[in-house]
């Protein structure tokens, strides 16, 4: 059984396919990461999967329900934590959850029980009667995480769950996500452009670029599939052909004015490589990270920091262009 199954899912703006015949299967109960640079199509994919935006063509099933024909039932079976704050500042944490219970038509006794449970899960029981306006960014995200879970969704979508948080709050949120994945036994879809986040949290990740999935697998496997170590070199005048002729050099790529080599057993061959390239300004040898995986498949680096706008901005921007 798949929690999510897309079939040629496509979204087109301005004659470009922002999401291009996407075929993706996410298994029940896994934490799946959708990774990609800004504008790769991950937010648009999420918008379609959560029924907020209709696909141009193709369709998808979420929790076994068709996103076009059964959108109301899909919305009932999913929880979402938005990139931008979406809790009400004027209300207290508890009131925000109470409203959520009403919006999802939960029976009163179940609602109260769940509020107690999810507040405890994210460690906000003590702060529940405080107005959200006085919450810190991390607390607010935790409240929204709790809210997304409250109605027992089958699939939980987290859109850049730690965007804009300081490193410490980020670690806290990660810990909570891991905990809830274990305790609530649900499927979680995370979109992120933080490689570290994907590496720490996800069972499997899909790297999306130009609206297509370029590679799919567990972080461990993806790193292993690169087939070796990474040597990053800064040299004057490199003869790429010589390098390529060495049979243990699997790949040579330019990255930001330097060269990244994928090499089997780097520690053994380092000296030969250094001899082959001539005068070296700097060299770095390490085991591959998801950043390298990303670089390997897309030919670009993924950069932290510059965030995409929220969903709303993005769609409004797209509509304005129309």
């Amino acid at each position, binding site marked *: 059984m798949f929690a999510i199954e897309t079939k040629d899912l496509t979204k087109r703006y301005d004659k470009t396919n922002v999401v291009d015949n996407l075929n993706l299967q996410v298994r029940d109960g896994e934490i799946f990461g959708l990774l990609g640079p800004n504008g790769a199509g991950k937010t648009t994919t999420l918008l379609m999967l959560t029924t*907020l935006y209709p696909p141009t063509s193709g369709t998808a099933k979420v929790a076994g329900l068709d996103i076009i024909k059964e959108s109301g039932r899909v*919305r009932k079976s999913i929880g979402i934590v938005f990139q*931008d704050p979406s809790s009400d500042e004027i209300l207290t944490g508890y009131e925000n959850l109470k409203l959520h219970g009403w919006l999802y*038509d939960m029976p009163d006794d179940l609602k109260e029980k769940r509020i107690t449970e999810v507040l405890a899960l994210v460690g906000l029981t003590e702060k529940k009667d405080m107005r959200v306006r006085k919450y810190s960014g991390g607390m607010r995200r935790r409240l929204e995480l709790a809210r997304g879970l409250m109605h027992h969704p089958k699939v939980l979508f987290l859109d850049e769950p730690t965007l804009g948080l300081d490193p410490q709050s980020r670690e806290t949120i990660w810990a909570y996500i891991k905990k809830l994945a274990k305790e609530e036994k649900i499927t979680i879809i995370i979109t992120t452009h933080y490689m570290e986040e994907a590496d720490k949290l996800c069972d499997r990740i899909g790297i999306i670029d130009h609206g297509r999935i370029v590679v799919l697998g567990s972080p461990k496997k993806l790193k292993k599939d690169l087939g070796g170590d990474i040597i990053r070199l800064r040299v004057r005048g490199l003869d790429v052909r010589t390098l390529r002729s060495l049979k243990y050099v699997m790949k040579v790529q330019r990255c930001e004015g330097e060269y990244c080599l994928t090499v089997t057993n780097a520690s053994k061959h380092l000296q030969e490589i250094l001899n082959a390239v001539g005068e070296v300004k700097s060299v770095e040898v390490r085991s591959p990270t998801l950043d390298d995986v990303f670089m390997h498949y897309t030919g670009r680096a993924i950069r932290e920091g510059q965030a995409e706008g929220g969903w709303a901005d993005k769609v409004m921007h797209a509509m304005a262009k129309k």
Partner: protein
Amino acid sequence: MSDLKGIYALWYRETKVFQREQSRIVASIVNPILWFLIIGGGLGSTVSIEGINYQTFIFPGVLIQTVLFSSIFFGVYIVWDKKIDFLKEVIVSPMGRTSIFIGKMIGGSTDTILQIFILFIVGFLFFSAGLMPGVHLDPLSLILSLVFLLVTTFAMTSLGLILGSQMESPEGFQLVGSFVIFPMFFLSGALFPINNLPKWLAPFVFLDPVTYSVDGLRGVLIGTSNFPIIYDFTIIMLFCAAMVLIGTYAFKKMRF
């Protein structure tokens, strides 16, 4: 109707806003009182209309003015909500868009009706102080005027939500909102009688739905109206129904 609780939730949220941001109410009733005291008092010192004290004459108009401004500008919260607030959470819930519109509409209308209640109390004080002789403040007139004000409020809140659902920036909303509100207010006969208008002006006045709210309310509260009250009521009901329908449609088309 599994959405009833959701509608209740949206309404509940608005009442909390009111409980916690009381400055909003105070700010919103200062303006009508100023209109009443300064325009009404200033003009009233020389003007009386068909033997009616001018302050008495514009009391219904000031009530409608409050409805117009408060209800239509409620729509700006939708614009804010689209960007930062609570609306996204509502839109992805299983609630239908029609229910979301109804919930927002009732919530916003509650704000306005609360202000109207306060203005009635203020009006009663003015009446007791002899500032507005001839206003009918008996239970029947009060109930009938509340019905008029309620229907007008529903219509105007819907109009505000329609504008809000189409706008992207709060500044834009202010601009367009003012563009809609001021002509509607000035043309409505809130400040002048409409039975003896210049020929070029009359059609605009009679095309303005607010004219019928003011006229009906004046009929109920002062006992003088240009049209039969039931005629006023029918027109304003039809206008309200149209606004609610368009609003529902606009919410269905609203994208995030």
